[in-house]
């Protein structure tokens, strides 16, 4: 039984479609990244999985229970985007409350905050915290009581690179212990190495749902070859390869993945005319743009 399974989920706001026939399953122990531009429907999808927002149509099961039911909520942790905890409370007080709500001992508050690197400021009012510190309070509450599903809406926004790294290390541990994780982000480059599967939403539609390798294959984006010719040979090189030219000596050509070796052979055959050469595979941003732009007319 998957931890989350949804099919045919659609949701409109005042006639504007935010989600269209979305299907998604997440198994225990899987880390799934949800990517998409602003307004793609990431937060809406998460709220529907949490049962905070009723979908217009579609089926959703969370932990083998209806979304938002007591059984589902008991095993699900959530980090909303832009959450602002009450500025008058300290992180310790806030986390103690959340622990009690999950039926856990409030004594765990200090260790939890230490885990997200907030020990020093834990007793201070949240109103005095920096953006990243506030985000960590949110992370700490999401770690309470061994959740079986974590729904994290832009969890790393406001975190510095070191904290991001620490955060993903915490997630890895949770996933190894069998928790399913759904997190949203704007950058494929950030989540590519730290998640098992990538779901790309565009205008409420699932454009891709695959591993990074699968996405790479399906996108079939061209590899770029940059050749540094000699000043007097650039024209000849470009002519023979039927490629474009840039700033005097650079010759550039794009080729499909399977043609790469043949093209390289063509180039090395002209070794005498060439100074240097660089092979640039499609970047993660290119792959992301490929899928997230496809829906746009």
């Amino acid at each position, binding site marked *: 039984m998957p931890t989350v399974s949804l099919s045919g989920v659609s949701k409109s706001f005042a006639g504007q479609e935010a989600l269209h026939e979305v299907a998604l399953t997440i198994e225990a122990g899987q880390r799934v990244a949800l990517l998409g531009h602003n307004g793609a429907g990431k937060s809406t999808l998460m709220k529907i999985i949490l049962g905070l927002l009723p979908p217009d149509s579609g089926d959703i099961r969370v932990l083998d229970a209806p979304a938002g039911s007591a059984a589902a909520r008991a095993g699900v942790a959530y980090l909303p985007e832009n*959450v602002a905890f009450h500025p*008058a*409370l300290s992180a310790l007080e806030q986390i103690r409350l959340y622990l009690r709500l999950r039926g856990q001992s409030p004594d765990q508050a200090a260790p939890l905050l230490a885990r997200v690197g907030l020990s020093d400021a834990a007793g201070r009012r949240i109103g005095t915290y920096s953006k990243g510190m506030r985000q960590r309070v949110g992370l700490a509450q999401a770690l309470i009581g061994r959740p079986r599903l974590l729904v994290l809406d832009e969890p790393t926004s406001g975190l510095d690179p070191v904290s991001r790294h620490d955060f993903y290390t915490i997630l890895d541990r949770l996933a190894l212990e069998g928790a399913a994780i759904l997190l949203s982000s704007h950058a494929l480059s950030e989540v590519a190495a730290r998640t098992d599967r990538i779901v790309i939403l565009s205008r409420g539609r699932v454009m891709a749902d695959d591993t990074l390798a699968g996405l790479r294959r399906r996108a079939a984006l061209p590899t770029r070859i940059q050749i540094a010719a000699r000043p007097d040979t650039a024209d000849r090189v470009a002519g023979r390869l039927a490629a474009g030219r840039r700033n005097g000596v650079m010759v550039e050509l794009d080729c499909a993945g399977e043609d790469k070796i043949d093209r390289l052979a063509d180039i090395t055959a002209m070794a005498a005319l060439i100074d240097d050469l660089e092979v640039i595979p499609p970047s993660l941003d290119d792959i992301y743009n490929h899928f997230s732009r496809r829906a746009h007319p």
Partner: protein
Amino acid sequence: MKAILPLAMSEVRIALRNRWVAIIIATMVLFSLALAAAGNAPTGVAGIDRLSVTVASLTGLAVYLVPLVALLMGFDAIAGEVERGTLGLMLSYPVSRATLLLAKLMAHLGILALALALGFGSAAIVGFATDASALAGLSALLRLFWSALLLGACFLGLGYGISAIAGRPGPAAGLAIGVWLVLIVLYDLVLLAAVVADDGGRFTSDLFSWFLLANPADAFRLFNFGASGAAALASGVGGAAGVIPPLWALISIALWPFAAFLLALAAFRKVVP
């Protein structure tokens, strides 16, 4: 339901930090002391002890102040959490909306009870210190205390309802002041104007009492003046206390808190975080 106590304690802590508790207590104590001091002046009404006189003026004060304070505590309860984004988070926990609202009610009512106890208590001390027969007014003061709490619970519920319907703290604050003006100030003015225009007709004889009972603030006034037999001290709408049985007024102020809470809960259930 186990979540109620920690939630309520957290609300109390927030109210303490925001100086709400201090402001409300200071207001209640200062007004009560001022009225107690005024109650020491000769009244000209024979056979009534000074504390009873003070209770009559405290009733007049509570009718304005308790709903105002309750609405001010209540209007942010849901709208504030929506704005901060904490409502969605809270509702992802295994906590029901009813529990959440009950916890807030518990906290706010507790704060109100403390402020009223301190305010009315200080008035009682002044009364006892200056009039040996003040004990006669004690039961009226106690009645005033618990009926003011019922009035407060009613307007807390209305405040939560406003908060849920408005959705944002700004509009909710405006709506709360509007409801206060309408229910506490305008309502009586319109009723009195209608009585004057009616000139002793059907409205005055049949409907007037029901309209008074329907408004929790008027019912509160009727109950306290009627039950204490201090109608002589009352003015305006309170003068009607002589004709309407206090029991009816009591039923009204006892039912209103439940109605208001259920109303608020129904509105809260419609709020999408």
